[in-house]
């Protein structure tokens, strides 16, 4: 039984007949290369699900520099296969080798604690120049510090980061402006494994969030001495109805209200989203409903999953996308000149393509280097749906769905580009996590997808045409990536905005470098950074097609 059917018929025939015929070229510009680079394949014996809810929600994958060799490595949060005795499993650190393949770091990597994995957050918590890891589980989460060479040590207890709720997405960000990364953990529900749920036709089915109370999210303040303090209550990050309204699945930390302070957006499953607006002095207020991002345009709650942030309409203000369940739309909220976001889902064209999909991981990227932000979404049902054509004949037949790639036609109008998406849209899986980053170092954004069967797909981007240009910007503060910083580039007479976001999507973490497609511009005039502490700096222009490092304090203060 395979959850994923990744090979087109011609390629299957090739496998069956043996290597006696040349491989047929695959159509499309995102080509799956993970299998040949050492990433875990779909398990053909992946067993039937058991309706144990955590087995259908996991999806953690992170792209980051782990071992100091300058390329992107990968961490994969996993679940024990269903239908086996309830257990735990080791999460895996994959180190990228010089030839582009990935090697399981094994016990030497130090990710030794087993868990029922869900998601992760990645960031340099001690400002020592390397990335640390926070892994969420159904059960106790684990925090690892990095020695700079890709060897991790469990520091959960010493850091005081003890969270035993069912954690999903998490994100690091400096919410109090003290120079150290704080941590927000979205927790899901208080699950009862004994609870049996049925679908509307009375068949056994995975439970939905409404069968349980929400689990409270946690905000942890980084004390700067290797420890964290739980400040959830004193920060006001609590909900009035005994936590009943928090079913956290997605989280992003950046300034969404343009007041110079880092806000926290939380996507909640079947409940209103929260936009925790930073009031200063460590206090937050939820303004999600009033700012138009809490509910859909009809004022109703929906199943909110993953979150993407980017400027899709070119007004230099960050917009939000939240992925959703089938029969609901992936919601696109555009920032406006008023404090209220505009629900632009229908007008954007996205609404035409998502009613029959359940979206989880998502991200904005300029995949063709034409200068605007396109969109990738990975899908997979949580409840039975009519099988899509080509679905494998297994337990998961009614859960697998193709992923989707949308091209921004300008002005936040999107078009589904299945042919261009190639393997990314052709493969069928129950997908959850999506991480974005320039994995192969060629200046464009590649995609890594995590699936329910513990397989990973790496889709190499071969799209940007010759003659198009790009820029990667690494923004640094206090000796680490300035997570949440907003960077605008002036090139060819046009200004574009992109963000240094690791924690976003669903249960995943992205390459924190900011990527710009510059179209035909072989150079750029200037860069401007809105740093997480609210200050702005301008940096001089230069040539395109390279990675630029910007350090806070070295630019011209605005």
């Amino acid at each position, binding site marked *: 039984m395979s959850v994923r059917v990744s090979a087109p018929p011609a390629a299957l025939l090739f496998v069956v007949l043996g290597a006696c015929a040349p491989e047929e070229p695959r159509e499309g510009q995102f080509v799956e290369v993970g299998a040949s680079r050492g990433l875990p394949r779909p398990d053909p014996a992946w067993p039937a699900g058991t309706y144990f809810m955590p087995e259908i929600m996991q999806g953690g994958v992170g792209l980051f520099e782990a071992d100091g060799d300058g390329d992107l490595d990968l961490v994969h949060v996993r679940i024990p296969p269903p239908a086996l005795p309830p257990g735990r499993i080791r999460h895996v650190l994959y180190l990228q080798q010089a030839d582009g393949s990935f090697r399981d770091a094994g016990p030497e990597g130090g990710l030794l604690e087993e868990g029922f994995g869900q998601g992760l957050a990645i960031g340099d918590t001690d400002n020592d120049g390397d990335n640390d890891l926070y892994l969420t589980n159904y059960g106790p989460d684990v925090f690892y510090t990095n020695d700079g060479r890709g060897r991790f040590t469990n520091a959960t207890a010493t850091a005081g980061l003890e969270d035993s709720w069912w954690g999903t997405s998490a994100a690091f960000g400096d919410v109090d402006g003290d120079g150290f990364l704080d941590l927000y953990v979205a927790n899901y529900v208080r699950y009862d494994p004994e609870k049996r749920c049925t679908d509307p036709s009375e*068949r056994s089915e995975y439970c*939905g969030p409404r069968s349980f109370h929400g689990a409270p999210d946690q905000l942890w303040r980084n004390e700067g001495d290797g420890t964290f303090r739980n400040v959830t209550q004193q920060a006001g990050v609590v909900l009035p109805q005994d936590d009943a309204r928090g079913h956290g699945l997605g989280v992003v930390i950046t300034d969404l209200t343009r007041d110079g302070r880092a806000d926290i957006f939380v996507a909640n499953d079947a409940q209103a989203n929260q936009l925790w607006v930073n009031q200063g002095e460590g206090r937050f207020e939820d303004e999600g409903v009033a700012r138009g991002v809490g509910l859909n345009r009809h*004022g109703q709650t929906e199943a909110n999953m993953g979150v993407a942030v980017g400027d899709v309409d070119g007004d230099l203000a960050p917009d939000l996308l939240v992925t959703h369940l089938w029969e609901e739309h992936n919601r696109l909220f555009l920032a406006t000149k008023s404090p209220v976001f505009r629900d632009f889902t229908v007008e954007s064209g996205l609404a035409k393509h998502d009613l029959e999909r359940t979206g989880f991981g998502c991200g904005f990227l300029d995949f063709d280097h034409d200068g605007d932000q396109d969109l990738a979404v990975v899908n997979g049902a949580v409840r039975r749906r009519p099988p899509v054509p080509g679905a494998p004949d297994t337990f998961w037949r009614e859960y697998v769905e193709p992923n989707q790639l949308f091209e921004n036609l300008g002005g936040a109008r999107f078009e589904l580009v299945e042919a261009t998406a190639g393997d990314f849209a052709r493969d069928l899986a129950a997908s959850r996590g999506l991480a974005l980053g320039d994995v192969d170092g060629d200046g464009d954004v590649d995609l890594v997808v995590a699936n329910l069967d513990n397989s990973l797909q790496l889709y190499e981007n071969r799209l940007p045409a010759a003659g198009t240009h790009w820029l990667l910007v690494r923004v640094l503060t206090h000796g680490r990536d300035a997570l949440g910083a907003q960077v605008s580039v002036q090139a060819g007479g046009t200004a574009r905005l992109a963000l240094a976001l690791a924690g976003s999507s669903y249960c995943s973490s992205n390459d924190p470098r900011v990527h710009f497609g510059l179209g035909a511009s072989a150079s750029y005039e200037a860069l401007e950074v809105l740093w997480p502490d609210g200050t702005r700096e301008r940096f001089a222009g230069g040539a395109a097609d390279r990675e630029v490092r910007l350090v806070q304090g070295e630019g011209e203060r605005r």
Partner: protein
Amino acid sequence: MKHLALLLALCASCHGSSAPALAAAHDSIPLPALAHVDLDVVAAIEAARAELAADPTSAKAWGRLADRYLVHDFMAEAAQCYARAEELDPESYVWPYRRGWSLIDDRPEEAIGPFERALAKLERYAQAHEAYGEVLVRVGRGAEAVAHLERASELDPRSGHADTVLGLYHVSLGEFERALVHLERALAREDQRVETHVGLAQVYLALGEEELARRHSEVSRTLPQSSRRDDPFASPNLAPAGARARTKFARQLERQGKLAEAEEQYRAGLAGNAQHYQARLGLAELLARSGRRAEGVTLLREGLALSRTAQAELDLARLESGTAPAPESRREE
């Protein structure tokens, strides 16, 4: 296997007593996957299919099967059957109207035509204008929706629904002053509709009235999620089958004061699926309201033994202490 055996037996009985043509007709009738579906739901579906196979040119028979699919959420099959019913009986507003409802969530573009045809025969029915207006807003034809929503507001001056939809539509366009007119009118008509308060929170924030925005935002948090209005033209009148449908029917009976019949439906639902929490909770609350609180408490305790959830514990504590259930309690599982 039990399901399969029942299906085979039912099919055999209808095939055995009919001509081959009847069997062929039966086979061509839309049929969703019924594996693991409750036996009484399967039986109800098969009975409606057999009735249709016996009279395949009957619009009512197609409509009855469509209704059966609609109440059990087999929406694609419901839409197919309603389409056939409408072909056979083009004068009825019922088939296109219900077809619209079976399509509105999955395929709203395809719901427009059926709603439009139904509306031509239901010009004075407020909810037909609301349904048509809502589906137009959903597919991005909001400008066309405005006239229908305004007409709905005129036709049913007690309802705040149409004005709320209009208000939220204007909010989505950034037309906050226009939105305010509709939302305040909606609020004057119905002050417990969560969407109205949500819209007002956004309008007041945009207009710089932060305190009013905060107040409406807070109120919205205390209100249960609105469900669709009861619409008799969109609600098939069928003998219920399955715990979910029986629970829904029992609640309707309760609202009509038919407590004994409601109790019967809850119990039948629980007999078919002892783990159906909403059936258990509904029955327990009904018993408590009927002066049989101890029986209700016992019922919830039995449920806790089957599945211990935080919600179930909370509901039990509330029933024991005689306080009202929380808005979150009465939700679909």
